[in-house]
């Protein structure tokens, strides 16, 4: 089981803030998780999660889509940050 979080425009576009997800196999990459989420929730999710500027954070660190997601991880999707 992993926790998936969504922020800002991504959160609004999906209408979801957070969900739990059972990984389907060991060594699933961030990309595989995205495909899995699309397969569960429909094509609208593809439009949002596959936007080129979406940022992926795994356990509070920005990662690219080839990173493996371990059991118990926290994975987050959000648009470019605008702090400061």
């Amino acid at each position: 089981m992993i926790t998936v979080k969504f922020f800002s425009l991504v959160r609004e576009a999906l209408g979801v803030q957070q969900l739990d997800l059972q990984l389907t196999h060991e060594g699933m990459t961030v990309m595989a998780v995205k495909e899995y989420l699309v397969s569960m929730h429909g094509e609208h999710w593809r439009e949002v999660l596959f936007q080129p500027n979406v940022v992926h954070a795994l356990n509070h660190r920005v990662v690219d889509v080839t990173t493996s997601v371990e059991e118990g991880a926290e994975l987050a999707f959000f648009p470019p940050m605008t702090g400061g």
Partner: protein
Amino acid sequence: MQRVLVQSKTFDVETEYRRLVGEFPGAAVVTFAGYVRDHCDNGNVMALELEHYPGMTESVLEVLGQQAEARFGLHAWRIVHRFGTLSRSDPIVWVGVVAEHRTEAFQGCQFIMDTLKTDAPFWKREHLDDGSACWVASQCQDEQRRAQWYQPQEEK
């Protein structure tokens, strides 16, 4: 003392300054404070909403402060950032650094601000006086400023 504060309540720039420098200030102190603007490209701003990613925010800011400390030999540093709904003229962010010389102090403070803009998970939404609200788009130039700090040939 905690060097990173991420909080919804407002803060006092003068109190933060005292916490940074303590009783025996170092030789050079540079601070940056960012406040809510009263206007933007789309109109007059009534309020600023700041969404953040609890946990990741604190950890990113701590790492950025530590990087600045190692890279510019800072004696001390402190980062305060608000989230939630802010009014016009409210302080949003405050960064203060102490160094032996002024150049390191300026660089350390600017490094933290330039990297914080693109690396700390905050998202701004401006509420205008016509009732509309829109997310602030990330700016290409912010990415460029961040990138400057990581170019090996750069001797700023």
